[in-house]
């Protein structure tokens, strides 16, 4: 457990740190079972992953779910728009850390850094053009509790040109960040 240094007070595309409020496992205590849970051995350097690896089976399954939803681009939605779904969900739920990472990815893949920044600055109502608006609106409807996603969201995504496989990617990407946001927000805090 380390002390938070200078937590950010606004959404940003800058690289942030993250510090845990409870004790991660020390790197020296990690066993092969833990390394299997980390999936990438390099994650042993991260406080966040050394905390989550206290339950290695769940972490391993979660990480592999995440990787396939976001990185398997043989078909389906372009990377940029999967990241947009993640960033919009994080913006709406209020996760400054997750939003920073995925806004940055959305900018990198879309080359639309200013639009992504407007999502962060103005919030999920920012006008980003029909296609992105549809993705953001669907992500927000999914993130609401009770869940507000309905046939209108699907109709809007289709009007914006998404087919069913791409709509499934929006659903998966946005839903996954309701998982990720709740871990990042509740187990520690971001630092600048």
């Amino acid at each position: 457990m380390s002390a938070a240094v200078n937590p950010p007070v606004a959404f940003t595309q800058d690289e942030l740190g993250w510090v845990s409020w409870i004790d991660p496992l020390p790197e020296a205590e990690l066993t092969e079972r833990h390394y299997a849970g980390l999936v990438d051995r390099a994650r042993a350097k991260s406080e966040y992953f050394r905390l989550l690896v206290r339950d290695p089976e769940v972490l391993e399954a979660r990480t592999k779910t995440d990787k396939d939803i976001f990185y398997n681009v043989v078909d389906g939605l372009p990377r940029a728009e999967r990241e947009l779904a993640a960033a919009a969900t994080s913006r709406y739920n209020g996760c400054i850390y997750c939003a920073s990472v995925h806004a940055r990815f959305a900018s990198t893949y879309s080359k639309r850094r200013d639009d992504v920044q407007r999502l962060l600055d103005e919030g999920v109502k920012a006008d980003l053009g029909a296609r992105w608006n549809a993705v953001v609106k669907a992500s927000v409807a999914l993130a609401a509790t009770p869940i507000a996603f309905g046939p209108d969201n699907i109709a809007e995504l289709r009007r914006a040109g998404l087919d069913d496989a791409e709509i499934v990617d929006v659903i998966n990407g946005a839903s996954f960040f309701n998982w990720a946001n709740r871990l990042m927000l509740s187990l520690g805090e971001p630092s600048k």
Partner: protein
Amino acid sequence: MSTQDIIDTLAGIEPGSALDAIRARRQQARENAQKSSLSLFEPIDASDCSLVERAAVAAFVTGLHGESPVAAFYREKLFANPAGGSLLEVIEAEIARGRTSGPYGSYPAGPLSIENTAGLIYRVSAASKPALGARLAAALEHAHLLVFRPRDAAAGDMKALLEAGWSTTGIVTFSQLVAFLSFQLRVVSGFRTLAAVNA
């Protein structure tokens, strides 16, 4: 051979359907969403978070999202637990007290403060506490925070769980449980909606 998993069952996705074929193109995501569920509800080690605690929290979290096939599934899971049946009524009463709309809560003081939104700060009722016990009462209060106002979470909430008897590892598993259900509920809702539009 049926490939149906829990998400398919809850979303009503039939083997051989168009959605089944789309899900099959994300086989690793599909298999690992299922593995996440199994490692949370059929864990190899339940010493830091018991099976009845997992079932009770799951019934509470999914019930807070409103009635759905997912909520019914986890209510059944709690009922099927030998120690769970007696908790069902208490959990139902707490769901009724805790239902609201989210996300709401506060940001760190600064430019985002203008977006702060007040809402229910849920606490377990005095009447339910004896049946739940200190650990489960603390868990329900924390689960409500995670469901509706995750941006309000603070270091003190970790302290409250530790003081109620949760281990650090138990907190990680319990947090994963609530967060995973937040994912599963939404995937099921999204897929059900898509299947219904296409029917």
